C-alpha cells in the first residue's frame, strides 16, 4: 500500500576527491533531491540516504523522506574504505528497510548507487559478502574518472558506468541520470520481472559510459 522506495547513495570522499569532484558531488546530490521532489511518483515513494567512505565509512544522512532531506557539507580526505561502506550499507538495509512479511507489505528493494574515483584500500570482498546476503534492487556502480578500479566494481554489480573525468559537468550529468532512474516510466514489452540490468534504466547521457 504505502511501500517506500529506499535509495542509498554510497559516495567516495577519499583524499583524491578533494576540490572540484567533492564539490560537484555535493551539488549533484542537491540537484538530485530537487529533481526528485518535482516528480510526483518519487515524492510519494522515494526515501534517500547518503553513506560516505574515506578512511572509514559513515552514514551522513539516514533514510529520509525527500521533503525532509538536507545534504550536509562533505569533506574529502583519507583512504578508500569501500569494504566498510558496503558492510555499513548492509547493516543500514537491515535496520532501515522494512521487510515484507506474510501479514505486512514492506518496502521496495533498495536501489543503490555507488560512486568512487579510486581502488579500495580495505577488504572490500568482506563488505561485498555482507551486502550479497541482503535483498537489493538494482545496484549501479559509477567509476568517476580514470583512476577507479572498474574490475572491482564489476564484481560488486553487473551495472557499472564510467565518467571519463570527475569534473563538475560529468558528475552533474551522472546525478541527473540517477534521478531519471529513480522515477518510473512505461515498462517495455521485453522486460523481465525484476530490475536487473542497465537496460531497465533510462539510457545514460553521453558523459556516462557503460562499462562492459
Amino acid at each position, binding site marked *: 500500500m504505502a511501500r517506500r522506495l529506499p535509495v542509498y547513495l554510497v559516495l567516495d570522499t577519499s583524499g583524491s576527491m578533494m576540490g572540484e569532484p567533492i564539490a560537484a558531488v555535493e551539488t549533484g546530490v542537491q540537484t538530485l533531491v530537487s529533481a526528485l521532489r518535482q516528480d510526483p511518483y518519487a*515524492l510519494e515513494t522515494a526515501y534517500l540516504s547518503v553513506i560516505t567512505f574515506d578512511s572509514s565509512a559513515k552514514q551522513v544522512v539516514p533514510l529520509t523522506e525527500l521533503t525532509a532531506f538536507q545534504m550536509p557539507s562533505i569533506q574529502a580526505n583519507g583512504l578508500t574504505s569501500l569494504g566498510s561502506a558496503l558492510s555499513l550499507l548492509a547493516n543500514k538495509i537491515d535496520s532501515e528497510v522494512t521487510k515484507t512479511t506474510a501479514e505486512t507489505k514492506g518496502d521496495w528493494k533498495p536501489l543503490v548507487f555507488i560512486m568512487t574515483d579510486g581502488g579500495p584500500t580495505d577488504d572490500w570482498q568482506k563488505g561485498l559478502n555482507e551486502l550479497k546476503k541482503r535483498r537489493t534492487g538494482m545496484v549501479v556502480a559509477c567509476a568517476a574518472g580514470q583512476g577507479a578500479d572498474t574490475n572491482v566494481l564489476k564484481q560488486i554489480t553487473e551495472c557499472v558506468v564510467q565518467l571519463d573525468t570527475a569534473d563538475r559537468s560529468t558528475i552533474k550529468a551522472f546525478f541527473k541520470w540517477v534521478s531519471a532512474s529513480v522515477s518510473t516510466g512505461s515498462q517495455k514489452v521485453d522486460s523481465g520481472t525484476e530490475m536487473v540490468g542497465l537496460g531497465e534504466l533510462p539510457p545514460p547521457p553521453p558523459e556516462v559510459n557503460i562499462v562492459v
Partner: protein
Amino acid sequence: MANTVKIKATDGSDVEFVDTVIGAGGMKDVYFSPDKSHVVAFFRDRQDFNAKDRLQNITGVYREKIFNQIGGEYWKDLYCWPTKIVEHNGKLGLVCPTYHKHFFFSTGSINNDFLGIKGKEKEGKWYASAKNQNKFLDPKERGDWFKYFQICINISRAVRRLHAAGLAHSDLSYKNVLLDPTSGKASIIDIDGLVVPGKYPPDVLGTPDFIAPEVIATKHLKMGDAARQLPKITTDRHALAVMIYMYLLYRHPLRGGKVWDTDPAKDEDLSMGAKALFVEHPTDTANRVKVKDLQPSQLPQGDPTKIPYSVCGPYLKKLFDSAFIDGLHNPAARPTADEWEQALLKTVDLMQPCQNPSCWHKWFVFDNTAKPKCPFCGAEYHGQLPVLNLYSSRRAGTFTPDDYRLMVFSEQGLYQWHVNRNISPNEKLTAEQKKRAGYFLFHNNKWLLVNERLNDLEDKTEGKKILIGQFVELTDGKQILLSKEDGGRLIIVQLVANKR
C-alpha cells in the same frame, strides 16, 4: 541567441525550430518552434521501418480520420496529436502542438512553492495521490470534485473516440494524460505509441498501476506465445477504469493489504496480475486496505471504509463492479469508454454543492436518502432539495422512466440533453443545442424552473402552458412536460426536505 533551424517535413511543408533542447523525455529531445505554438521532438534512437510506418499512419490516415470530419475541431483540446514527421541529421522527429497553458502549474506547491514545480506540467500523478493532494499541492491547484468528474468525462470521451477508430492507446496512465483541475480539462499525450490491432505490435506493456492483470500475468511468456497478452483495446479499458477510480478517490483499486509473496517484486506482479483483487470487493475481504499501514497524509481518502467507492453514485458503482469484480480477470466484461462517459454524465446530474463552505471536495453525489449528507466533510444538507426524475415517451401517450435523475441547485441550467432522450452532451452537439434551455432558481423559499427556450413547456399537473420567460414552481409530485418532440421528456418532481 540560438539558431533557428529550417527544415522540410515529409509532407513537403516547412518546419522551423529553435536549436535549444527545452525538454528530454524517455526517448525524445524536444525543441520549440520560434513562435512556441509547436514543438519538434526528435527520437534519440534510430527508428526502424515499422516505427516509421506507424508514425506515418498516426500523423496521416488516423489523424485525418478523427480530425478531418465534421466536429473534428472538438478533439484538438482532448489530444496532443502529432501532425507531421521530420528528418534532420539522420534523426526522425515529430511535430506536435504545444500543450495548453492551463496544463502547467501556475502556483504549484504550498509554502510559496517549496517543491519548485511552478511552470511544470500538470502530470496526472500529482492528483491521483492522497498524499500529494493533502500535503504538497497548493489549494489553488487542486480544484473541486466536480472538476475531476469533468476531467474523467474528457478522458473517457477521448479514449472512446480512439477505440471507435479501431486504435488502442496501449499506455494510458497518469503520466500520459495531462489534466487541469482548475478548469476540468484533460488531454491525452504520447499518442505516438498507438497500437493498431493486427498492424503494429505495442512496444510498451504500459505504466505500473495501469497494466491489465492478464498482461502482467503472461509477461514471462515469450513473444509469439499464443497465451501472451499484450496491450489492446480491452487493456485500455482496464487502465481507464483504474484512472477514473484514482482521480475520483485518490487511491488505487487493487493496492490493499494482502501479501502474496515476501519478495516485493514478486508480490507486485501477483497483486497487479494473476492474483489481482479489488480492495473493496463485497465478499472477498482478503485484500482490504490496512489503515495502520497508511501514512497520516493518505487519510481520509486512503481508507475505503471512510470513503467507499459508492460515494461516486449508483451509475459509477455499477461500472466499477464490472471493471474490478466481473471484468478484472475477464477482459470482455470490462466497461467500454462509452459506458464510462455516459455514466459519468448521468452522475454529474446527481451532484449537489456541499453547504459547508470549508468542505474540501465542495460537491457530492446525492445519496438517495431523505437526509442527504456530504460523505467527505459529513455536513448534512439542510432545506428543500428538488430531485427531478426523467421520463420519456417511446410510444405516444405513455412515459417510461429513463433511469436518469437531475438534482437541482440554484442557478443550475437545464439543457437539451435533459429535455430530449436522443441528445447526448458530447462532441456532436450543435451550437444551438449547447444553449441553455432554462434554469432553476431558489426564490422566496420556492424552487422555480424558468423557461428560456422551450416551446412546449407545460405544467401537466395544472394543465398549464409555461411560455418562454415564464416560470413554474417545483412542488412534490408535480409533472412537467419539457418537449413534445420525438424523445421529449417529462419530469416528475420529488422534494426532499431535511429541516434543521
